[in-house]
């Protein structure tokens, strides 16, 4: 069995080590099996952050339910969500349409040194509040870089080594305070095709099948404007200064992005300074998700966060809402200049042979935007 190069955290290292040793020595293996659940519903799920930078203050509110026997997280719309600071000043946040996201109003950011908490009143009468947190000081990012590796990691799902870009960051930890960090990134790239239809043609916003399209494998339709899509980092990437206090730390891996296509790529590296309870909560998340494999997996933990329903409903609320001081750095790279082979060659674009030219599809939906992201060269 191949050796896995896995990026993980400290105490799970002690666990993953033993597992990997046995994997290489013996016949150990991990087989995928159908996941078994014992569904329980009726919980409110709230997560997100109150940030000191625009665009980063957002909370997501859902409820878990069984719909027709299927477990689902349904968005809670119509809630009144607001952030309240230590002086009692309340700012109402706005719902992003057709989603479970509530964002702080444009122009508003939290301030360092002040304490904040969230209050959410749902249409069902629950009043959820988070424990107040003091906005920590923001620690400056010293330097960032992007490094490309043709064999960056081994993917069991794809059963091969994957070429990827690694985003690295240097920082200097202040010695006079306890600092807790969380890292993430957003990656922006452009797309050319905004709609595709199989055995159909695209008209008026939908794929319409007709007798003469029965044998069409696929037709692609170009975007009507420059269109960007964003991808967010997943997973916990956290760091405490317990062992690095006061030192300069280099080459902290903020994230990893597969080399799958050519074209421009904009990385927005994000560093969040969070509180200690928020850090501990993230440690729990890491332990029960990415860290759950191996010989000595941590015991399963309930997600005891900092949220309570103060109404008479006393609904159980899972998740965490904390403050974060945000620092970002942007790096733009042109993948056409990278010396390496992407994952799979770009599938060729097949245009409908319409006269004079096939219609174009709009850049809408999900993670698409026609707004040029900050940091993208003109």
């Amino acid at each position, binding site marked *: 069995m191949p050796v896995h190069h896995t990026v993980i955290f400290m105490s799970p290292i002690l666990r993953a080590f033993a597992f990997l040793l046995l994997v290489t020595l013996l016949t*150990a293996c991990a087989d995928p099996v159908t996941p078994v659940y014992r569904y329980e519903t009726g919980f409110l799920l709230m997560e997100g952050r109150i940030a000191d930078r625009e665009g980063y203050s957002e909370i997501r509110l859902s409820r878990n339910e069984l719909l027709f026997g299927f477990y689902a997280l349904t968005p809670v719309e119509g809630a009144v969500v607001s952030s309240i600071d230590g002086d009692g000043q309340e700012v109402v946040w706005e719902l992003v349409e057709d989603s479970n996201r509530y964002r702080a109003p444009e122009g508003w950011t939290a301030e360092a040194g002040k304490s904040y908490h969230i209050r959410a009143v749902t249409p069902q009468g629950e009043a959820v509040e988070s424990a107040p947190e003091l906005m920590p000081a923001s620690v400056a990012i010293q330097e960032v870089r992007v490094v490309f590796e043709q064999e960056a990691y081994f993917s069991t799902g794809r059963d091969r080594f994957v070429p990827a870009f690694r985003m690295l960051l240097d920082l200097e930890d202040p010695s006079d305070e306890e600092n807790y960090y969380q890292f993430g990134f957003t990656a922006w790239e452009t797309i050319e095709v905004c709609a595709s239809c199989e055995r159909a043609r695209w008209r008026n916003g939908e794929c319409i099948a007709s007798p003469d399209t029965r044998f069409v494998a696929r037709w692609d339709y170009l975007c009507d404007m420059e269109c960007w899509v964003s991808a967010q980092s997943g997973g916990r990437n956290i760091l405490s200064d317990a062992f690095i206090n006061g030192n300069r730390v280099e080459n902290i891996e903020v994230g990893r992005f597969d080399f799958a296509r050519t074209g421009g790529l904009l990385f927005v590296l994000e560093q969040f300074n969070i509180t200690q309870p928020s850090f501990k909560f993230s440690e729990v998340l890491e332990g*029960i998700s990415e860290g759950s494999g191996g010989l000595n997996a941590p015991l399963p933990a309930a997600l*005891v966060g900092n949220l309570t329903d103060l109404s008479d409903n006393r609904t159980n609320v899972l998740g965490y809402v904390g403050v974060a001081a945000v620092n970002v750095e942007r790096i733009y790279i042109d993948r056409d200049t990278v010396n390496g082979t992407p994952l799979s060659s770009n599938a060729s674009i097949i245009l409908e042979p319409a006269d004079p030219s096939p219609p174009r599809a709009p850049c809408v939906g999900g993670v698409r935007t026609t707004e040029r992201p900050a940091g993208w060269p003109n």
Partner: protein
Amino acid sequence: MKHFLTLIAVIFSGLLLAQTYVVNIVTTDASTDTPLGFVNVQIQGTSLNGTSDESGQLKIEVPPGEFIVLASFLGYETTSTPLTVSGTSRLVITLEPAAQQLETIEVSSRDASERMERPLMGVERLTIEEIEVLPVALGEIDVFRGLQLLSGVNSAGEASNGLSIRGGTVDQNLVLFDGAPIFTPTHLFGLFSVFTPDAIGSVDLYRANIPSRYGGRISSVLDVRSRNPSSDKFKMQGGIGLVSSHLSIETPLTKDKKLKMLVAGRGGFNDFIFGFIERLKNTKSRFMDGTVKLRYNLNEQNIITFSGFYSKDFYQIDLLNRFNGIVADQNQNDYYTLNGTLDWLKIFNDKTSLATRLVSSNHEPKVLFPQSGTDNTVEYKSQIRYKSLQTTLDHQTGNHHLSGGVQLVRYDLNPGEIDPGGVASVSRVKLDDEQAYEASLFAEDEWKVSDKFTLSAGLRFTQFAQLGAGEQRNYGDSEIISEEFLTGTTAFSAGETLQTYNGFEPRIGLNYQLSPKVSVKAAYAVTRQYLQNIYNATTPVPSSRWKVSDNNVAPQQASLISGGLYALPGKGKFEISLEAYYRNIDNLLEYKPGAEFFLNPTVETDLIQGQGRAYGIELGITKKTGKLTGQVNYSYARSKNLVAGPTFETSVNRGDWYNGYFDQPHTLNTNISIDDGKTNRISLNFVVQSNRPYTAPNGFLTIDNQPIPIFLERNNERLPTYHRLDFSWTVHNPKMVKRRWIGDWTVTIYNLYGRKNAYNVYYQPREAGGPSEIFGSSPLGSYRLTIFGAPIASLTYSFKFS
């Protein structure tokens, strides 16, 4: 019903009398060639026994047949002599003076009738001969695998650092080697135990009536003893195998043969094989263990023994890992155990003796992160040091065998530290050392009340104290121990007492013989544990943290009641045993959700204490004589925990009873050995058992775009049934020529039909390209981890030279 009655009839038909002959036995002293009086003589497989008179004479009436006669006497080696009875006969038994430890003075409990009479229920003894015939993974002789044949003893998972005894956890067993505790008793993260195979003399497992001279753990005591060097000539034995090789030498060191030595070692350095595979070329896996035993017969009244043990493991793997900001691309595990025991046995006369023992035990695990491109290595290490002085007085008077004594134990713990090793971005961090002592007084009386009734009453009293230097943290009256409730800290200097605990631990057993072939036993024992192993997983790794009890962590306490029925139906070829037990645990140690102990200075904020209970019934049938030997064991056993604190965070499974981590209701264990007495020995081992519980999530949610499982319960599902068949075949001395050099070849196949037994089931976010037909619409993927998923064959060559 009819079959049941027939079975009862068969068992009791052994009471019928048969014709007997007189056997005249004479017992003599080999060194002086004179008669030796008051020797205990027993006919193996029967309840016939006696004691020779002052002139060494004894007459016993024996039915016709072939038997083995066992003879023992304080200060002499126990002998076994074959005897064929077809008429009146005479047998001379010669005994060699070489005193044994007082505890093994009775005839080995290989003898079933001895098990009939001693009240020690729940003690299992394995000799090295019995362990050697078992098939094992990777061809290694293994004490732990041998014990797993017994009812109520389970592996804690195929690659786990110990055993689960009657549903208990791994750290609830006191594992001793010549009286010195072993804190990490396995190599290769749990594949096999550390005891040097050539040096093992006997293995005693106490789990019901634990004698009062033992204390400190709540499930069991595993007392492994090295064998005594007794040979007058130079002897060597060893073996070469795929995973490891071993060698031992036994020889007298002085001309008068009063000082004898045994040196045994085992090492596994075959990791050069990895060098041939490109991806594994930096993987290293090396281990070794060694035992030295010196025995000095100063004179007939004084015997001094020294036993030393060293075990070392080193593993290295290419593992790109990030440790709080430092990137290392290799990871190393390095741990050792260094123990020493000094014994002085003073024999006053044949009724009284005094045994004094001094023990030192040292265990230091390290995890290393070498920095590529430099000579720097970041090192994490911890250490546990144990010292003990124990004196036991044994005295036989009338029908009472009295023993008593005192034990003083000192613990010095380094709970963990980081050494930056020259890496500028890492700071040095060290947790405060912990110190404690346990002072115990114990006394026991084994009273033969009548021919049929034996009672053993013991009492142990332990005074525990946590000592400074150290810091004591107080959390007020709050039931919740967490940082927001910290009311104050007090600093103590070296030698001052921070916290004390004490208590009596009664150990009572009784044995009543209903008939020469049937006896019933009962036992009651209270035990306490002052040293805990802390790990937020099902089993600990070698570098898991140890902690002494303090003002926030109370000692765990267990009380166990057990009862049993033993029968030797017919001619005594079969032994039948039926045992039932119930154990209650107070202050059971559990962990708060997301508990993290790594270099945590306030570890008590992540611990919660609750309750546990375990109960079960064990049924076993054993055949120990003849060409075909073996045993079948079935047990039904449950283990449950309860942690119900005032908040959600201080409860587990919402405050309801939940299945313990080693709750395995049904176990069926079969072992058969066929020995033609000359060259070939074939052994088969088959296990079917309910597997351990695991936790299935109650749903999932997404946080920062990532799906996370929701775990509200604990141990609510069970892994698929475990079953496995092992096979081994030993060819002994193939050339069948009697020479000084005798060699054996052994082929072992572990997991013969390649069953993929589940070790764990876990949930992780799905990877791109994963199997969607298996995961369906679940955002989490689920994986079943198997340790030994295929048959593992191994070939070993072992030799003996004298």
